[in-house]
């Protein structure tokens, strides 16, 4: 394994691990706050129980998210020092703002988790809302920094050096809005439907449990609207990629030849004529740039990007379908918790959001290769000169495998102990 590949693999493992905890940390506070608000309104003890149990689970996941996020912020420099030397002054501003958002999140999570008996009910609920808001903000700031790598702005290159550095222009980079929207919705959709799916499984065993019914309803309330909106934000994101990163789009759709009126490859051998041009540019005759527009050594891994993209789209579509089903049942005032087929669909949807999120990051990161900063800095030129990078890669991988197993076991134990009445 070459050092660049080892560094990329370590970054991939670190990001893939962290993103699970990050999106749960963004969305779970919303579920907790809804449960607590319902407890304060109805005084139904089921909601208090729910808020407290969710808070316990969130405490574990948030802590692992915080430390794995620290690892990433250091790894940016440890693995890619030349990237950070170049990009630091431009993407440092969103990272600094993220620092403060994360501070707020950690402070009020402490108040929320340990302050049930120490602050007033109103202050406690407010702390939960602040955790939810600052969690979403810190996610958005980090995604903005990533967006800059896709569409770098806010500088002029003179003699190979970045001049006229403008961090505000860098923050307003064109990829920022579509990426931040897509990622934030992903967090709510994955976590909301994930929670709903777990409690759907428990309801399949015992459909009278008030605890699981309440949890299912709140999970759907957060997850379903996000899952329904996600295809729209995906369309916005894809159209920006078509304009700003045509090579990435070509890899996503495995378009080898530049062509007008490009078809959409749905399955191997199945194509919808003109559909790709229509989707990417809202014009059936638009020209879609193919991989042939750049030299072979500037192609990303087309097979993997295309596969990841299809996985993301398929799972996202399924999640949107289940969410529409839930909305339709709710509109007709049907009892969701006693529909076995619907509950089974939710169980299947539970892991989909997390897998789709991983696949989506594969698309955006692998699709940008061989560049770290698109058309500015190649990944091979960004890597640290230190040899033997396979050692830290293996160490971090082992560490995260062990941590993942422990977290999984702790959550399994907690869920299996949830009340069944």
């Amino acid at each position, binding site marked *: 394994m070459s050092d660049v590949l080892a560094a990329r693999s370590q970054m991939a493992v670190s990001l893939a691990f962290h993103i699970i905890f990050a999106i749960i940390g963004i969305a779970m506070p919303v579920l907790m706050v809804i449960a607590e608000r319902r407890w304060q309104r109805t005084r139904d003890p089921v909601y208090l129980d729910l808020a407290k149990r969710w808070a316990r689970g969130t405490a574990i996941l948030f*802590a*692992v998210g915080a430390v794995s996020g620290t690892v990433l912020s250091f790894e*940016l420099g440890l693995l890619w020092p030349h990237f950070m030397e170049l990009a630091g002054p431009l993407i440092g*501003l969103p990272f600094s703002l993220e620092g403060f958002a994360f501070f707020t999140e950690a402070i009020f999570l402490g108040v929320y988790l340990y302050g049930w008996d120490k602050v007033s009910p109103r202050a406690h609920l407010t702390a939960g809302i602040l955790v939810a808001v600052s969690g979403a903000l810190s996610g958005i700031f980090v995604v903005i920094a990533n967006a800059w790598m896709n569409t770098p702005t806010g500088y002029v290159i003179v003699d190979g050096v970045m001049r006229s550095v403008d961090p505000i222009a860098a923050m307003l980079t064109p990829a920022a809005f579509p990426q931040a929207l897509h990622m934030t919705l992903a967090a709510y959709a994955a976590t909301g439907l994930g929670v709903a799916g777990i409690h759907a499984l428990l309801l399949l065993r015992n459909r009278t449990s008030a605890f699981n019914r309440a949890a299912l309803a709140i999970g759907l309330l957060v997850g379903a609207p996000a899952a329904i909106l996600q295809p729209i934000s995906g369309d916005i994101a894809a159209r920006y990629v078509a304009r700003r990163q045509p090579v990435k789009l070509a890899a996503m759709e495995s378009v080898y030849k530049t062509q007008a009126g490009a078809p959409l490859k749905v399955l191997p051998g199945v194509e919808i004529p003109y559909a790709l041009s229509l989707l990417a540019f809202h014009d059936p005759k638009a020209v879609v740039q193919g991989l042939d527009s750049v030299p072979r050594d500037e192609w990303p891994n087309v097979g993997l990007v295309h596969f990841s993209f299809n996985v993301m789209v398929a799972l996202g579509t399924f999640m949107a379908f289940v969410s529409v089903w839930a909305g339709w049942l709710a509109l007709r005032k049907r009892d969701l918790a006693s529909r076995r087929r619907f509950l089974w669909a939710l169980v299947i949807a539970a892991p989909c959001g997390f897998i789709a999120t991983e696949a989506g990051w594969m698309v955006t990161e692998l699709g940008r290769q061989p560049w770290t900063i698109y058309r500015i800095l190649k990944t091979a030129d960004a890597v640290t000169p230190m040899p033997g990078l396979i050692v830290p890669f293996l160490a971090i991988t082992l560490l995260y495998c062990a941590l993942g197993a422990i977290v999984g076991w702790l959550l399994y134990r907690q869920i299996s102990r949830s009340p069944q009445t």
Partner: protein
Amino acid sequence: MLLLSHTLAGVILVALTAYVLLGGADFGGGIWDLLADGPRKTRQRELIAHAIGPVWEANHVWVILAMVLLFTCFPRAFARIAIALHVPLTLMLIGIVLRGSAFVFQIYGGGGGQGRGGRVFAIASLVTPVLLGICVGTVASGTIGAVVGIPGETFYALYVAPWLTSFSVAVGLLTLTCFAYLAAVYLTLETRDPELQADFRLRAIVSGVWVLMMAGLALALAPHRHIADHRLAVLMGLAALTAFWALWQRRYRVARMAAAGQVALILWGWGVAQSPYLLPPGLTIAGAAAPRSTLELVLIALAVGAIVLFPSLYYLFKVFKARTGLSVS
């Protein structure tokens, strides 16, 4: 430009100081968890977990802030540090991950303080501060400010020898004893139980002696004279004497102030001594600085952030540390 970059370097040192005084004490709690002993072993561990629980994540953010400010405002220095200190920084990260996750597993996993999670928490709390200190000591010693990445040199010469020096290790041990000392002093105020207070008073005095010995060792091993500013070193000594006197008199609030001041003065003594260099002997603060537009915006972001941060921190400590007299009232 000079003033702006030096202000931001100062802010980074403030963030590092806050991390040492707050997050450092949380690591120190882990050290006392490992060394819990005597008839009140279990109660000591419970007190430590109780004291750390609500605040450790907020305290941890200071190191991320210091890191982010370093790569935003001084990208050249950051890149050099990240290359030359890859090994100890990666080990430190593993320590940070193990410490944080083991602590939360222990609290929420229901495994109790003596389980394997407790062991991992305690050992990671021991190793991580030493590595942090080694990194700081290496910057101070000037071994990475001079040369980076000469081709043809061995791995050891380029990526191990710069930080594996007797001086850096001494700074690592100094950091460890400082963290243990701070934790012991703070813990005297976390309980009303006179027996537990006496336990941690004794630990504070003993570790306070260790701090002075390690500070002396580090000074003796220093590779050059600009390791500590003399005026601040005198103030540090006065703070140490005050802390010992207050601990002896059981005036714990005075002891906490004095001990925190003492450790902060060690850091500032180093910072002032190596100014105007960020990575002595070659790279100055101004020479490593990012473009002016970045520095100005970061300063504005810091001002806005501080308006949100400090009232929130005040509230956090008021809610959980009011009994310990940390709130102003």
